[in-house]
């Protein structure tokens, strides 16, 4: 990734061109960049978030058992029923809430930790930085899913919170490394030197001078962490290792697999959760690409500017 740190506003004005003068806080007047990818991505993610937030209030009791067993989609049950006659639509909306919640909470934890460890370490430097980056790199090379499987198994039946913590433990390292590299490059900029010379305190420099300039990168890392968390939770839940008593897209697939939905041909049971996961992940990826293009205008595919001078 290039170190150039264009902000949204600057690149929107003059793609590829160096900003004429560096203002103190360039991100202040934030507005949505005119990017189709960003808008589509945000639209998808917000729509699915809305399903999770409002859906369960409208669809009735997802655990209610009825005599209508393994029915395909119909007027009475829009998405069919499970083998115990539970309404799939109600189950799916609640599972959406669960999965999105896991994604957001893990994303938030991972981002906060990565800011704390990456930005602070990168800015302070010295022994602190060396210790921080050693720990980060070790966590980064230890494969996360097997570790999560092993820990989750020991914490059998720990509930959603335990699942969230287990996934967060393996998610924070990647964004930390990216943020550290960015923080180290920003540290050398003139305005940080100026702030240091004028006697500003370290925490103020980190919060006011450095962090706002890292916002696009932080946002990209957050989005990445959410995707990773949703997929990891789904994998763990599918293996029967996520906290029980809560519905997510992964637990739905787990129940479907256990009830032989595949062999019974109950496609309405396992197709929708995976499809929602794919669409949600796709929306988040689109947001990520849009942010990448804001950071590095070279990646834009719409305009054919490859001969243009940089």
């Amino acid at each position, binding site marked *: 990734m290039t170190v150039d740190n264009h902000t949204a506003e600057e690149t929107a004005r003059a793609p590829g061109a160096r900003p004429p003068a560096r203002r103190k806080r360039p991100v202040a007047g934030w507005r949505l960049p005119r990017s189709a990818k960003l808008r589509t991505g945000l639209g998808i993610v917000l729509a699915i978030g809305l399903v999770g937030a409002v859906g369960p209030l409208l669809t009735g009791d997802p655990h209610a058992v009825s005599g209508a067993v393994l029915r395909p989609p119909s007027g009475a049950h829009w998405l069919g029923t499970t083998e115990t006659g539970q309404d799939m639509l109600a189950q799916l909306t609640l599972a959406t809430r669960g999965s999105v919640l896991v994604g957001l909470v893990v994303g938030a934890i991972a981002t906060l930790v990565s800011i704390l460890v990456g930005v602070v370490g990168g800015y302070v430097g010295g022994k602190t930085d060396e210790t921080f980056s050693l720990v980060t*790199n070790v966590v980064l090379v*230890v494969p996360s899913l*097997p570790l999560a499987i092993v820990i989750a198994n020991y*914490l059998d039946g720990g509930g959603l919170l335990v699942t969230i913590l287990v996934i967060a433990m393996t998610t924070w390292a990647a964004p930390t490394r990216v943020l550290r590299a960015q923080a180290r490059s920003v540290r050398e900029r003139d305005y940080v030197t100026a702030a240091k010379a004028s006697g500003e305190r370290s925490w103020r420099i980190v919060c006011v001078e450095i962090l706002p300039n890292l916002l696009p990168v932080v946002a990209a890392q957050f989005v990445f962490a959410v995707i990773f968390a949703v997929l990891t939770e789904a994998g763990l839940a599918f293996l029967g290792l996520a906290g029980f008593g809560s519905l997510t897209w992964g637990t739905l697939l787990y129940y479907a697999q256990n009830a032989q939905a*595949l062999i019974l041909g109950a496609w309405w049971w396992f197709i929708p959760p995976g499809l929602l*996961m794919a669409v949600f992940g796709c929306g988040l990826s689109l947001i990520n690409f849009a942010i990448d293009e804001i950071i590095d205008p070279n990646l834009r595919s719409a305009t054919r500017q490859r001969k*243009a001078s940089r």
Partner: protein
Amino acid sequence: MTHVRRKVLFYLVAAWAAVTLNFIIPRMMPGDPVDILLARMQQSGGPVPPQARSAIATALGQGGDANILVQYLTYLGNLFTGDFGVSVTYFPTPVATVLGQSLPWTVVLVGVSTIVSFVLGVGLGTFAGWKRGTWLDGVAPLTTFIAAIPYFWLALVLLFVFGSVLQLLPLSGGYGYSTDPGFSLEFLSSAFRHAVLPGVTIVLSSVGGWLLGMRNMMVSTLSADYVLTAEAKGLRPRRVMLAYAARNAVLPSVTGFAVSLGFVVSGSIVTEAVFSYPGVGYVLLQAVKNNDYPLMQAIFLVITLTVLAANFVVDMLHSVIDPRTREAG
């Protein structure tokens, strides 16, 4: 040379951390694994003989009431001799034997799939980057969608369509029950038929990443001066694309490929679970289901050490290929 020494030191620390983590996790967790195991045995198989308790403790590497430091040193010593204890799931087979039987399945299946998806992705990515802005480049967003599909769900759908509805391919396992493992034509063709669906799943779910990475690197490389020079010299486009642009753009992908080889053992845990494929992932799942801690720990260790080894090789290669990375240790 200091760079190499730093890297070696880092990987030693990482390996030590993983090994120690593996030792600490069972001891830190609430509930005694020995008790859990005894309870499960009582539930499923009636009364358990009194000496079972110490036998299980020994199998778990807890060595009874020994001092924690002694336990740790015994544990480390056992690792060096390849002694992982006895598997509970496949009692009384030693863990090392179980690992030896499941590793080849995973390595062949995931290894071949990884190579296929790398070649396919890099090839398509080269074209997409070269034809930027045309319909070919439109493939890139499509791969975003495919990459967002959870791979085990893709496995479920493929299994449903080709195994359940069309009944073209087997539903589970690594080979037919009627064939004996060995180098017979019958066994190999059966093993191939069983590997098609899991293999296709892995290729489909990972090809998009290669494609996109290669496309973006192509786009960056195409704006470099030497590509412009090559075009100005009047070289044939094909030559400019392959010898000038792609050759330089492929370097990060090669690094990524080497890293992903390290994930061959761990990368398909959930896929193997879907297909009941007799590889490491499936065995890990069996171990988890049966609270087979010795087997679980050994698999985790093998997976971690493979990943570490692959990363180490990549790091070493990197400092040979690109001297600029040496300073950035």
